[in-house]
């Protein structure tokens, strides 16, 4: 009925008419605004905060670490990141104090009269510095996480190989650049602290705020406000911002709204982890990989936060879509003196897949093979064993994706012909074509989902409507609509009878965070289990099999017809029928964290992209003109919404690969305004041709797998490979700006 159809978004009309309020649009009586005072150095010891005696500070209220009643930590994985710096400063901008006023301009003015004094020490900053330090003296670095993968016999693999190909790859920071800046509103009501915010994970924020305030989890109520984009940037950071707002609200006894302005948001919130990947590959004449020895370093910043899981996913995706018999991967999350990077669509995979997909084209280039053929020789398939021991059981569409994308883009022929294009005086643009094949494992890594024990619920309420009660958040990906489609189809009721209120921790169970492309596949499944259980409960009550149709229940034996309202009245008139289920983690898919082996992800989604570029011979400006892609995602619950995710993710990956320069100078982000942090505009997008293939996953709702992050693994390496096709030059760092092309050519003596 609904699944598989491009139903209009249920929240769409309020968005196109501007009626939907985001957190900065919330108003409460007596509301005050909060702003943050920050540490001025990257590493050091806090000496004091100096308040300008000439400024009238009676207009503002200040909160410092001394005001924290609970623990001065923001709980993410480990309790090591302070909410407010009290003594040691470990990154520039570490929040030191927060203050409030009625008019944000006054609060910002007061900021100018406060000085933070600190004793400076020498910081470790930059992925190049980290790579150098690792090669020189690895024992002097601090590692937050050090996974290792070993498969087969590396030495015999290299012995067998005809060629050895070595390369180093670097990827930089990336800023999420959600259009809506971070914001949280905090207020006290009936003895509880209420947090409303632009956030992805209400159940992350609740315990974090409770810990800082020194209260029980149940005394903090977190509600998601409509969220204007997140991409991972609002997974953990809002816990810190919410704690700040809550502290101010506690001290002033008033509602506090804190909304970052763009420069502050870019400067101090989380970014994608910069990475260094070293690959040494043993290759046969026909392009078959027989050995791979890799080192992966991620810049984890000052505190642990999410880095272990980001590195883990990056490591587990680092062989991309290839089956390699002999593998050794050593990975480290390295501590440094920068604001901790965090979650960002792809979560480690864009970095390592960039390295592997680039390596494949480097191999093709050096061995004079076609990149399509090299990929074909190494593709994973059902039955393949991945480097960490997982055997692929079902739903592997990569070969079909690769074949199809090559056909619609005419890749093989164009690659060869562009390779031969001379430096003719007549032509002012050079053409290139690049290919990348990608995968993404949806859901939490390894035992994550088993540990999470996510619970979701539905309630058939007194009005005969079905409420979806989960903590997952709509941030543009369309889950308000797709979850409703799933429930409507499972119960066979019209969508108008399905309601999905904004997640509120006092009203819904913890279905886990909205991350890791897990919502459709895991939480969608939980909802289908709830639906089945609801039917079972009704059948048990009436002691007959039932059929639901058009919003009514048909008792199949007695041939009676009942409205859903009647059923509720018969079974549970006071509270409606509430069904809660926990995710049924498949016991045959275990992951051993100690050995770092086993089933890393329940299933993978797959994709292949081809990008065609035109390069200006005079300015080295790279312009993507056509982008072909084929993605295999199990089942598109809502095809238009799925295409929206795929297209949006690909353009983000395009920005990552081509123009989103995000440098640090003296511990501060240099491109920290929209004028200088460059993301694609409407004029930067190529013509896009996107196709969806479906190989249903047996445990996914209607066969669906995860898709949110998959497209962000794809375009950056395809662009890099297209540039290789144009110039015959291996550029192993992104973004590939004209400046980087020129500097690489100069360094290699070509220019």
């Amino acid at each position, binding site marked *: 009925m609904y699944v598989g159809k491009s139903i209009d978004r249920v929240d769409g009309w309020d968005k196109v008419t501007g009626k939907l309020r985001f957190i900065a*649009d919330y108003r409460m009586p007596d509301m005050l605004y909060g702003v943050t005072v920050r540490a001025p150095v990257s590493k050091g010891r806090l000496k004091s905060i100096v308040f300008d005696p000439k400024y009238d500070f009676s207009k503002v209220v200040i909160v410092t670490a001394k005001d924290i009643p609970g623990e001065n930590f923001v709980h993410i994985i480990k309790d090591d990141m302070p909410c407010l710096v009290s003594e040691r400063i470990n990154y520039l901008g570490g929040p030191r104090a927060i203050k409030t006023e009625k008019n944000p301009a006054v609060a910002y003015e007061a900021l100018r009269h406060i000085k933070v004094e600190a004793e400076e020490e020498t910081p470790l900053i930059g992925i190049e510095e980290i790579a150098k330090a690792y090669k020189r003296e690895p024992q002097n670095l601090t590692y937050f996480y050090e996974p290792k993968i070993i498969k087969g016999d590396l030495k015999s693999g290299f012995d067998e190989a005809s060629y050895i190909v070595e390369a180093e790859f670097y990827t930089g920071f990336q800023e999420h650049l*959600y259009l*809506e800046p971070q914001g949280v509103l905090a207020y006290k009501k009936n003895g509880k602290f209420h947090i409303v915010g632009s956030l992805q994970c209400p159940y992350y924020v609740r315990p974090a705020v409770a810990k800082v305030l020194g209260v029980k989890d149940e005394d903090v109520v977190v509600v998601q406000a409509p969220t204007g984009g997140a991409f991972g940037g609002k997974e953990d950071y809002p816990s810190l911002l919410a704690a700040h707002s809550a502290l101010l609200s506690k001290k002033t006894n008033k509602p506090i709204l804190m909304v970052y302005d763009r420069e502050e948001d870019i400067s101090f919130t989380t970014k994608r982890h910069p990475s260094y990947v070293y690959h040494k590959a043993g290759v046969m004449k026909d392009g078959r990989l027989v050995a791979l020895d890799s080192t992966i370093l991620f810049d984890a910043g000052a505190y642990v936060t999410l880095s272990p899981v980001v590195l883990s996913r990056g490591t587990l995706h680092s062989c991309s879509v290839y089956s390699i018999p002999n593998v050794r991967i050593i990975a480290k999350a390295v501590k440094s003196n920068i604001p901790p990077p965090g979650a960002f669509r792809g979560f480690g995979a864009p970095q390592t897949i960039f390295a592997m997909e680039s390596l494949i084209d480097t191999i093709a280039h050096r061995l004079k093979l076609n990149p399509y053929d090299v990929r074909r020789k190494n593709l994973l398939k059902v039955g393949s064993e991945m480097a960490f021991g997982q055997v692929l059981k079902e739903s592997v569409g990569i070969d079909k994706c690769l074949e199809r994308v090559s056909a619609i883009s005419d890749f093989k022929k164009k690659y060869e012909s562009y390779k031969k294009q001379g430096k003719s005086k007549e032509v002012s643009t050079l053409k290139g074509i690049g290919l990348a094949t990608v995968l993404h494992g949806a859901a939490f890594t390894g035992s994550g989902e088993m540990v999470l024990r996510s619970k979701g619920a539905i309630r058939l309420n007194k009005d005969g409507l079905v409420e979806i009660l989960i903590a997952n958040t709509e941030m543009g990906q369309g889950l308000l609509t797709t979850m409703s489609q799933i429930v409507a189809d499972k119960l066979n009721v019209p969508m108008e009878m399905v309601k999905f209120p904004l997640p509120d921790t006092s009203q819904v169970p913890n279905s886990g965070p909205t991350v890791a492309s897990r919502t459709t596949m895991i939480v969608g499944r939980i909802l289908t289990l709830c639906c089945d259980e609801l039917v079972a409960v009704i059948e048990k009550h009436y002691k007959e099999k039932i059929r639901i149709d058009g919003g009514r229940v048909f008792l199949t034996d007695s041939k009676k017809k009942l409205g859903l309202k009647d059923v509720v009245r018969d079974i549970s008139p006071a509270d409606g029928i509430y069904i809660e289920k926990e995710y049924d983690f498949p016991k045959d898919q275990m992951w051993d964290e100690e050995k770092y082996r086993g089933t890393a992800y329940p299933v993978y989604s797959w994709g292949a992209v081809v990008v065609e570029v035109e390069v200006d011979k005079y300015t080295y400006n790279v312009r993507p003109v056509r982008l072909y892609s084929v993605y295999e995602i199990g089942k598109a619950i809502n095809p238009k919404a799925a295409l929206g995710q795929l297209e949006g993710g690909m353009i983000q990956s395009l920005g990552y690969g081509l123009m989103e320069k995000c440098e640090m100078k003296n511990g501060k982000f240099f491109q920290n305004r929209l004028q200088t942090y460059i993301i694609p505009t*409407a004029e930067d997008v190529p013509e896009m041709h996107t196709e969806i293939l479906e190989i249903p996953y047996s445990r996914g709702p209607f066969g669906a797998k995860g898709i949110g992050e998959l497209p962000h693994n794809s375009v950056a390496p395809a662009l890099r490979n297209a540039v290789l096709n144009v110039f015959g030059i291996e550029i192993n760092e992104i973004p590939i700006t004209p400046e980087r092309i020129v500097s690489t050519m100069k360094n290699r003596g070509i220019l």
Partner: protein
Amino acid sequence: MIKRRWKINGKNTQVEFSEEMRLIDVLRETLDLVGTKEGCGEGECGACSVIVNSTLKLSCLLLAATLSDGTEILTIEGAENTPLGKRIQKAFMTANAVQCGFCTPGMVMATYYLLSKVKKPDRETIKSMLSGNLCRCTGYKSIFEAVEIATGRR
């Protein structure tokens, strides 16, 4: 304090505001017309786009005091009540050109401006006229298709 009489979304409105307020501040704080969004405050994202005297402008860069009495302003709240605005909004729904929704008000206003100048713009013109409105979610393709649906080209 400055006093002005503007026509906002077709209604004659008296406003009073202080000298340093931008148009976006008057709309959002004084008039509670919060449909117009602030994404950057420096004119780079287009989320604050409004139509002033039939011309697309960025309300975060307009000092409110520079708008004289009689200025006509159309915001997203008013677009729904115009035939062109409503047609555009319906097209955005059909094309799934809305994801998180934050850029959408500005995008709708920019489209309104485009279509009031050019009846059936081609794809190049659409891209060019929307180049001042950043979107991080959609990849823009569905937005181009929405505009083409609104003009009957699709």
